[in-house]
């Protein structure tokens, strides 16, 4: 009975709020998806943080700092949304540390040159935006509201990345080569950010039925590719896919096979930076313990003074 009523509300495009009845599997799916999303924002600070001290100008450095600070904020919006489902922040962090919760595999690739800051902003944030714009219409109220806020802030991220790529592409031959190299390394992992093909994505069915996801992985991926090809052409860079060509009949670009063996290998912990990313998060968390303890002690002391 509850389940039928729940589905009727979903079908009527009503949002589900934290105190509303929801199927256990809906709650579980959301916790997994939102926490993975939150962890991605937080872990995603590392590849960019890597370049803050080496940014080529004060302008670039200030922008990168602001961007990384935004990622932290987005992680917090998402943890907040996730906590409304009845799981604590501590538990979420613990699941990340234990490897029970995942984050986007894209952040397990290293950022080797300044051009990578361009590629990450343009492609990785670009792909994230396509996904997040779609998720603004997700059925769970707190998640949807978080997405609206994030989307508002995120478009500067993609534009600053594309600006870096455009400038390097019209710079010296060496700079252009760096930009092309960054595009070569980040293209395939970026389009795999949308996840497995629909035919291999067992959870897509429920997620679509419950309107947690509003578009399938393949639709979102195609949308991103269609948007991005022209941007690459405009700045004279070549997308590393020989099968990429316009299909007038479909009104979309056809593209080549993705290397799913590599994808799953990185998801399962064997990417170039998996160990480093997690170890760094644990270290920062542990080393911050005294700050959390001090804040608690200070709060307690104030209570005593007030009473």
């Amino acid at each position: 009975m509850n389940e039928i009523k729940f589905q009727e509300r979903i079908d009527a495009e009503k949002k589900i709020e934290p105190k509303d009845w929801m199927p256990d599997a809906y709650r579980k799916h959301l916790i997994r998806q939102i926490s993975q999303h939150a962890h991605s924002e937080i872990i995603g600070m590392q590849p960019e943080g890597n370049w803050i001290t080496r940014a080529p100008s004060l302008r670039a450095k200030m922008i990168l700092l602001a961007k990384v600070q935004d990622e932290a904020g987005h992680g917090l919006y998402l943890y907040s949304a996730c906590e409304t489902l009845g799981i604590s922040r501590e538990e979420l962090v613990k699941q990340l540390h234990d490897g029970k919760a995942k984050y986007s595999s894209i952040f397990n690739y290293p950022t080797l040159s300044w051009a990578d800051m361009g590629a990450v902003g343009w492609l990785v944030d670009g792909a994230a935006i396509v996904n997040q714009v779609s998720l603004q219409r997700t059925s769970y109220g707190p998640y949807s509201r978080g997405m609206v806020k994030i989307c508002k802030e995120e478009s500067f991220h993609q534009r600053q990345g594309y600006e870096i790529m455009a400038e390097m592409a019209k710079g010296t031959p060496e700079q252009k080569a760096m930009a092309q190299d960054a595009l070569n390394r980040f293209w395939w992992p970026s389009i795999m950010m949308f996840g497995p093909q629909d035919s291999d994505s067992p959870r897509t069915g429920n997620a679509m039925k419950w309107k947690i996801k509003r578009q399938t992985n393949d639709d979102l991926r195609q949308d991103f590719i269609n948007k991005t090809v022209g941007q690459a052409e405009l700045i004279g860079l070549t997308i590393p896919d020989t099968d990429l060509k316009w299909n007038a009949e479909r009104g979309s670009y056809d593209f080549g096979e993705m290397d799913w063996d590599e994808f799953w290998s990185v998801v399962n912990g064997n990417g170039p930076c998996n160990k480093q990313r997690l170890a760094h998060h644990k270290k920062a968390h542990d080393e911050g313990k005294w700050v959390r303890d001090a804040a608690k002690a200070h709060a307690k002391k104030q209570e005593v003074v007030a009473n």
Partner: protein
Amino acid sequence: MAENATVWEVFIQSKNGLAHKHAGNVHADDKVMALENARELYTRRNEGSCIWVVKSEYIISSETEDSEAFFDPSNDKMYRHPTFYTMPEGSKHI
């Protein structure tokens, strides 16, 4: 592992003279930290001229499931709306 910090709901007044509007929440151990965290998290782009924070445990909410019954008393009182009344033909400024 340390227990959760207190959760505070954040309300932001975007401009002097407007009402404070709910923006989200933050974790903090005391009220000063709650205000500072709220500023860092919700007003990085000049979104606010004033912030309220209140411990989440003090928010009392009606139940969405009971909303029909809860708000029922106002359903049949159309005479509270100005459009309920018939004005004489040609009347102005009313």
